[in-house]
């Protein structure tokens, strides 16, 4: 007898409003007894970038494609790891240091799948989901340049 495939609810939201991590975890795990691990990653606007002080950060996105691109990677994550739930929330708008930007929650029976899937999703969010950051500092405003280290982080998940 094969065990039933656990259901894997997926929530993807792009929003200006802040999110409440505890509330999102509660929603993901409500009435579930098959989840043994939830990994939570939150990305936060920080004040220092390459030794310059950041006053604020503006996040722009490509509406429509951003949701679809995140969904494609969430679907790949659920095919690669036995996940019992995924939540991805990406905020857009203008942020001050200390404010939340992104949340990834992955739920699984065991921790390894949840850890790996969360890392996989973040690596692809950074390099493939159509979002762009513009920094404001004392020197003025400028678009953040993509880092080769982020491409390298995403490339290690590529299957030949």
């Amino acid at each position: 007898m094969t065990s039933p495939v656990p259901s894997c609810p997926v929530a993807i939201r792009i929003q200006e409003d802040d999110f409440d991590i505890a509330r999102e975890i509660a929603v993901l795990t409500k009435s579930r007894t098959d989840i043994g691990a939830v990994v939570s990653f939150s990305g936060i606007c920080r004040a220092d970038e390459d030794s310059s002080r950041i006053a604020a950060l503006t996040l722009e996105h490509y509406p429509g494609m951003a949701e679809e691109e995140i969904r494609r990677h969430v679907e790949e994550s659920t095919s690669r790891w036995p996940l019992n739930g995924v939540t991805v929330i990406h905020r857009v708008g203008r942020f001050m240091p200390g404010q939340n930007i992104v949340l990834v929650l992955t739920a699984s029976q065991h921790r390894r799948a949840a850890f790996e899937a969360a890392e996989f999703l973040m690596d692809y969010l950074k390099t493939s989901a159509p979002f762009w950051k513009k920094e404001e500092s004392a020197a003025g405003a400028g678009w953040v340049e993509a880092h080769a280290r982020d491409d390298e982080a995403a490339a290690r998940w590529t299957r030949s």
Partner: protein
Amino acid sequence: MKVKYFAWVRERVGKAEETIEPPATVRTVEELIAWLSGRSEAYAYAFEKPKVIRTAIDHAHVKADAAIAGAREIAFFPPMTGG
């Protein structure tokens, strides 16, 4: 077809979107970028380093040699920096 621009590509072009009708000789993303670059200094500046520009056709990433035939919406943007 509809064309969209994001981040500094949008700022350099000076608009977020427009409808264009390239000639039939423009068949690939690479050729479209070259054709757009010839329109004005603003486009030439936006596309001055074509290898840096990323392109999506109908919400999916494509490479420079992708065919544009049948595309409803083509978007040009810099490498992504979200997350």
